[in-house]
Every structure is written in C-alpha cells, then in structure tokens.
C-alpha cells in the first residue's frame, strides 16, 4: 500500500513544487516507485520543474473525467526509473478535482506505487483541501518569514481537522521543511532561526534547505535540484529524503560559511 504524502504550505512561492519534485525524485532514486501529482489546476507548474512540459498529453482532470486512462496520462521520467508525473489541467475548472475522482485516482495509483507525492496549490481553497485530504503524511514547507509561518500554522490546523485521517480519529504525520534558509542573516538577527520556527509550529523538523542559487538554475533547466548533487540545496534535499525514510542524518547548512578574521571583527 502506498504512502500518500502531501506537500503543502498555505503561502505561495515558498518552494512546494521544488520540494515535491526533489522528494519524489529522491524517493525514486532509492528504488521506490513514485508518482508525483500536480493539484494546481489552472496554474500547472510541476511539469516545468520536472522538465517534462512538452510531454503532457493528458492531465489529472482528463483521468478523473474518464477522457484518458491513468496509464495514458502518467509521464514516465527520463532520468530516474520508476518515477511518474501526473500534470494538472491548465484549462479545466478547479472544481473538476472532485474528492471522489481524486480518491479513485489515488486508489488506482496506490496499487502500483510505493509513494504518492501530492503537490498542493497555495491557499486553502478547494485544490489545497483535496490535495491534503487523503494524505498519510504532510510536509509543511515554510520560509523563515512571518507570513509563511503564520500560514503554515493555519494549514497545520486544517491537517488536524479536515483530512481523512482526522475523520477516522487518526492523525496525519506532520513534517516541517524550512526552505530558503540563510544562516548568515539568521546569525545577524535578520531572519527567524530554525529553532524559532520550530518553537512556534511545534512539529518535527524534516530538513532545512539553504537559500541557494542552484534552485533557480535547476528550475531553469527543468531538473529537480536534488539531481544537482554538488549543490547545497540538492544535498539538503537528499538528507530530507533519508530522514523521511527513517534514517538518521545530522542537519547541515545551519551555520554560515566561516569568514576571515577582519570581516568577523567588523561584522560584515
């Protein structure tokens, strides 16, 4: 039976799609069969980040409405084996992602996948609610910034009350993924620290992804950043995948790269 993981945040632009793409790729690299689903109807973007935008023929809504089979709509990744992408519809109405339809697709996928990663749209409207409803686990992507932390807290409240697990009296396993972290600004007192965010949200930390040029470079190229094994962000995502699988990994990239004596003395 597949684990269903929702990548969510409330706030937009914090790195949900980047995270979905990298985690799904990382899990597939570990030998699991993984499907990554874009729930952002009308604003499809996962295909671009995964670099398969020209191979989209059928989408999620086509499958729900019976216009295509799941087999026809799933795009097989060309780099990593056993990784499949289901694109969001760019034209259909948001309401087309019905709870029943999504449940049918997830049930069918669960038969042949180990992990199903649901890339949630921003906000707490219909698309986001459907994306989280069937989840076993949730990765709450948060930036060390006030509006993002507040929205994450709101989303945590919804995960605890508006999901299938919640309706069965169980709970969705929650993980915090802090992205765009700048250790230097944290040290200067200009940015919330990982401890600050953890103290406020009070959920286990899955990983800290440093602010990194490689994220934009990877998205420019349509490569999940986890494949950039020399980059800090790529390595941080690989660590997060390991922790998701229950492996112990020390958190890295939490301290700024050491500077010279003079710049330290005068507080560069």
């Amino acid at each position, binding site marked *: 039976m597949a684990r269903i993981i929702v990548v969510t945040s409330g706030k937009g632009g914090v790195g949900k799609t980047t995270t979905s793409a990298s985690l799904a790729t990382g899990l597939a690299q570990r030998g699991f069969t993984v499907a990554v689903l874009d729930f952002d109807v009308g604003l499809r973007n996962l295909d671009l980040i995964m670099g398969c935008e020209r191979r989209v023929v059928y989408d999620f809504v086509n499958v729900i409405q019976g216009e295509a089979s799941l087999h026809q709509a799933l795009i097989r990744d060309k780099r990593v084996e056993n990784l499949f992408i289901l694109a969001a519809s760019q034209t259909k109405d948001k309401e087309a992602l019905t709870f029943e339809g999504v449940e049918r697709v997830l049930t069918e996928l669960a038969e042949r996948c180990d992990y199903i990663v649901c890339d949630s749209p921003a906000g707490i409207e219909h698309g986001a609610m459907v994306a989280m409803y069937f989840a076993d686990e949730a990765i709450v992507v948060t930036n060390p*910034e*006030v509006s993002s*932390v*507040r929205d994450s*807290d*709101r989303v945590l*409240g919804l995960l*605890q*009350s508006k999901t299938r697990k919640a309706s069965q009296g169980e709970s969705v396993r929650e993980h915090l993924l802090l992205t765009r972290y700048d250790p230097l600004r*944290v*040290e*200067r*007192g*200009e*940015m*919330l*620290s990982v401890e*600050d965010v953890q*103290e*406020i949200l009070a959920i286990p930390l899955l990983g800290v992804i440093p602010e990194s040029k490689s994220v934009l470079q990877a998205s420019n190229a349509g490569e999940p950043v986890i494949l950039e094994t020399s980059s800090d962000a790529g390595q941080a995502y690989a660590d997060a995948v390991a922790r998701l699988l229950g492996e112990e990994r020390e958190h890295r990239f939490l301290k700024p790269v050491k500077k010279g004596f003079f710049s*330290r*003395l*005068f*507080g*560069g």
Partner: protein
Amino acid sequence: MGIFSYFRSKKTSAQIAKNRLQIIVAHERAENCGYDFLPQLRREILLVVQKYVPVELDHIRVDLTKDGNCEVLEFNVTLPERK
C-alpha cells in the same frame, strides 16, 4: 556578529518577528482550537444566555485545554452586575 553588535541593545528584527508570531499564532489557535465549529458554538451559546441575561459576545470566553489524552472545553460567561 562583529564588535559593533555588542553596543546594539535594540531587539533584532528576528526577535521582533518571533514575538509577533507567538502572539498572533496563539490568538488564532485559541479562536478555533482545531475545531472550526467553536466560533459558531460560542455565538449560539450567546443566544441561549441572552434569553435570560443581557450579555455580549465579549463576555463569553472559550478555552480549550489539553490534559493528557483528554481535551477540556471550558466556557466562561461573565454576568453583568446585578442592579
């Protein structure tokens, strides 16, 4: 942190952010405590109480506390002074 920062006694912006967040998040959690029906329940209780005593919504306080596995829902109604 350089030597100049030792002369700065002002709170850093990150500390201000943390304080603001702690307040707003606690406030918002108290508002629905994970139960969306609480604001509505509070309004309905107000209507019942109002049948007998003139109170306002502000006079009804809702507290949800966790005690181990048990959640305690507490309503406090402040009654107006008796004339």
